[in-house]
Each structure stands twice: as structure tokens, then as C-alpha cells.
């Protein structure tokens, strides 16, 4: 069930169905993207900090209506999914990921690699992220981080 959540999340990003991204989260969720450098030094500054499902919807609305960016396709590869803790209604899990980007007329290039540390709500049939912390290794992010990870 947990592996299935990660697989369908990666499929959503790789298929370009990013409009469905908020549906992988509970309403009262927290989504963070943070560099490994900040994470390991205990520095709180994030690259993305969204504190509700509404904030995720806002990101998608900005992608659709406001932000200026070049078209690209994304290959989001996820692996090493492991459950690291359980409670009644939630599971703590981690994963590793690599994201490749392909621009128009471009070759496919590695964008970022990293790990995720997640809390997953399993109180209903469909598991949903309650908290997703994406820690990326990449010291120099190549260009802009447009889509979520």
C-alpha cells in the first residue's frame, strides 16, 4: 500500500499530471523541500514551504497562470521505500529519488537527487501524505525548481 503511494506519486510527476499533486496530501499537510546542506546544519530555510493542501493548490495555480518557465518533461525515479515507524493512523516512511529533466531539443539531464522523510495517513483506504520533507543533495540546483518533487 505504501509502495503504491510512492509509485503513483512518481507516475503523476513523470506523466506531467502535476495538477493532481495536491490530491496526494491530507488537508492539514506540510510539504517542505530543503537542501541537504541546510538540513544537516539544522538551518530551517527551505526551498519550498507549504503548510496546507491549499498552499499546494496555490502552487499549481501559479504554475498554470502566473509563472514564466520553459516547457520540460520530468522523469521522477523513486526507490528504497522503507517504513521506519508506525502508529495507529500513520506510518513514517522514507524514500530515495532522482529527477531528470528534458527540455525542448535537449538531452535528458540529471536535475536533483535526494531523499524524502514522510508521514503518511493510513486512516482511510487511500494513504495520503500528512508530511513530506524532501531533502535534496544537489548543491547547485540547475536553474529553477518549477515542479514539486
Amino acid at each position, binding site marked *: 500500500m505504501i509502495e503504491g503511494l510512492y509509485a503513483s506519486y512518481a507516475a503523476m510527476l513523470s506523466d506531467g499530471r502535476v495538477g493532481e499533486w495536491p490530491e496526494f496530501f491530507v488537508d492539514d499537510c506540510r510539504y517542505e523541500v530543503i537542501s541537504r546542506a541546510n538540513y544537516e546544519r539544522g538551518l530551517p530555510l527551505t*526551498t519550498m514551504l*507549504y503548510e496546507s*493542501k491549499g498552499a499546494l493548490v496555490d502552487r499549481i*495555480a501559479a504554475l498554470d497562470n502566473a509563472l514564466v518557465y520553459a516547457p520540460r518533461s520530468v522523469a521522477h525515479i523513486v526507490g528504497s521505500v522503507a517504513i521506519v515507524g508506525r502508529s495507529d493512523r500513520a506510518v513514517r516512511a522514507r524514500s530515495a529519488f532522482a529527477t531528470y529533466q528534458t527540455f525542448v531539443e535537449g538531452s535528458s539531464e540529471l536535475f536533483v537527487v535526494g531523499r524524502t522523510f514522510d508521514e503518511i495517513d493510513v486512516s482511510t483506504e487511500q494513504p495520503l501524505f500528512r508530511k513530506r520533507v524532501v531533502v535534496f543533495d544537489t548543491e547547485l540546483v540547475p536553474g*529553477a525548481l518549477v515542479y514539486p518533487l
Partner: protein
Amino acid sequence: MIENRAGISDPTQVPYWIYSDPGHYKRELEAIFYGPHWHYVGIESEIPNVGDYKRTVIGERPVLVVRSAPDRVSVVLNRCAHRGVEICRTKFGHGKTIVCPYHQWSYGLDGGLLGVPFRRGMKGEGGYPADFDLGAHGLETLTVNNYNGLLFASFDPNVEPFADAVGPEILPWIHRAFDGRKMRVLGYQRQRITCNWKVYVENLKDSYHATLLHVYLITFLARAGQVGIQAQDARTHANHMTASARTRPSDELGTEGEMQSLRKDIVLHDPRMFASIKEYADDYSLVIAGLFPNFIVQMQSNNLQVRQAIPLGPDAFELSWTFFGYEDDTEELTQLRLRQANLSGAAGYISVDDTEVLEWSGSGMRVKPEDSGILALGGSATSHPPDDYRRTVSEAVIRGFYRHYFDVMGMK
């Protein structure tokens, strides 16, 4: 490769080859990055204790910024005087001395050479000559300036005093964020953008694009009634400041009714990012101050950052962001600074547009370097009065940068 060209003195016609030519880039490194100019290297609170150091770069040269005494910061070239080894490979560290791993040459925190193994050889054989002078073989040391915890360094000891280089018109705006309070670094962002570093410097001086490119900005942040001022230093015209304020005194932006939306169809579900606390005596909600060549302070509501465009060859640069607050900030204020960071950086609601357009500038300028771009908005003046800048639609501030740049590069 283009030979050094004199006679290029019209800042309304900046040739594209200055953004891509490898020979010109090498001359830039020498004249600007290793020449008599101040370069940002860090914030004092990053190295609070004696022996703390951080690694950074000026131009392409790695340097170590070291707390060498309780009240002293030293900046040294991160390269052993012996065989050229880059000594330190970690981003931050702490030590009593700086020791090269290759042959264990040992330096003091201020870069002075303390000792070398086998200086007298073994059993009287080998070793360094009797007249070998430790004092002549220290790490290369840079000239340092500490402005209320904001650290700058220069490879050229003849660099003018920091306050003179900045100019009295701009210094008070640097002081607005760096007033002597103890700072707390909240974190970093780093991007690699495939575009010449100068195009980013232009971007921060370019008020023309702000309300045209940034739909998000005009939808949620900029108001019809926004007023602003600009300033440049009178001597070089290459340091600048832009400040804008909302016309209403209220600094609250958290309610939907307050937001003027150009795209009325975009409704924010979570507007917490736009909540702010008034911190300054003035009513400016956005202040950007830029110092020649590549340093920027931005104060946007409660989000405080310094940025640097570090060259990575002629065709790319690192955009390095340091976000900070103060030691005495409340938890609530820190949260606001962190939330508002969503506007900036690699994924920022405003910065994504700039990053993308910069890459397109890079690719566009490279294909026909003999052509020139146009910087004629507002005429040819390289400065304009500190007026409401919306009534002064002008690229004068960018021309001011190039006026000084041509001078420094000997291109006049």
C-alpha cells in the same frame, strides 16, 4: 577571442560578446574579482568562535573566511603555499591551525606559516636551506572589511575604504539591515544558472521588467498605489538602491480584501505567506541595494537576504542566497521570514521567472556575440534623480553599472 577593445563607452549599446568571450572573461576576473573592489564573503555570525572558518569563493579563487581572534576575521586564499593544494574541502569547519593534508604545512588562523615538516631534513641531510623564511611563505591574505557583521574582502590591498566604495547615498540602505544587531543565518540556497553573471546584476537593477514579467508579483504584491525611490552613488553610479512602499500605512497583507489581483481568477487558498510584521521606521516593503560588482541585499517585508552572482566561466554563474534574521527575533518573526522565502530562490514565486529568463538571455546572447542589446530606455543618462521611479521609466541604473564597468575594464 576578442582582444581588449577600447572605445566602447556607450552604455546604451552594450555588445553581447562581453557576456560570452573567454578572453574578456579572464580580464574581468583580474580587473574586477581580483582587483581593487570589495567582494562579499559572509556574515560574521557564520563563524562565531575563534577557529571557526567557512569556505567561499571570490571570482574563481577559493578562500577561507576565518575567525582568527575574538574581534578579528581573516580571509586567506585556500591554497597551500607549498604545492598549490586546495587545503580545505569542507564548507564549514573549526581548528586551531590550518594544515595542508599533503605535506602537513601548518598555518596559523591568520594565514601565517607556523612550520613545515623536516625543515632541517633528517640527520642533517636534506631539508630547507638555512635562509628559508617561514614568514615569506604564508597563505595569501586578503584585505577584510567588517561592516556590522557583513564581511567583505579584496585581493588588492589598495582597495579604497568600504564606506567610500559604497557611497553615502547607498550606505544607509545597507545599514537598514546591518545596523549592528547580531544576525542569525536561517539558511542558504544555491543555483547554477547558465547565463553570464552580469545579466543577473542587470536584472536586479531593472525596474522595467518587474511589473511586466512577474505576473505573481503584480497579482499579489505590487499595488496600483505603490510608490518608490531610487538612489545611486554619485561617484561611480554603479551602486544602487530601490525602495518601494505601499501607499496605505497598514503593513498587513494577510487578508484577501487587501490583495489587488491583476489576475482576478487566481484566488489564494493559503495567504499566510503574505502576512508580515512592520520592522522598520520607514514604510518600504521592498528594499534592494546592490554594490558593484555582484552583491545584493534584499529586504522584502520580513524576508532578509544577501545574494551574490559568482561567475562560473563566461557562460554560467552561481546564484548564492543567504537568508538571515537576528538573534533576538521572536519565533513568530522567524516563521514569517521563512514563509516569505517562498517568493525567492530556486522555486520562488518571483525568482523562477528571473531564473528562466536569464537562461534564455544566456542562450540568445551567445549565438551572435557581435551584436549589441539596447539600453536606451529613458535616454542615455547613467543616473537619474531619486524620484518616484514609476514616473521615471528608465534603464539609467543599468547604464550606471556599465559606465563604471567600462571604466574598470579599461574599455573607454
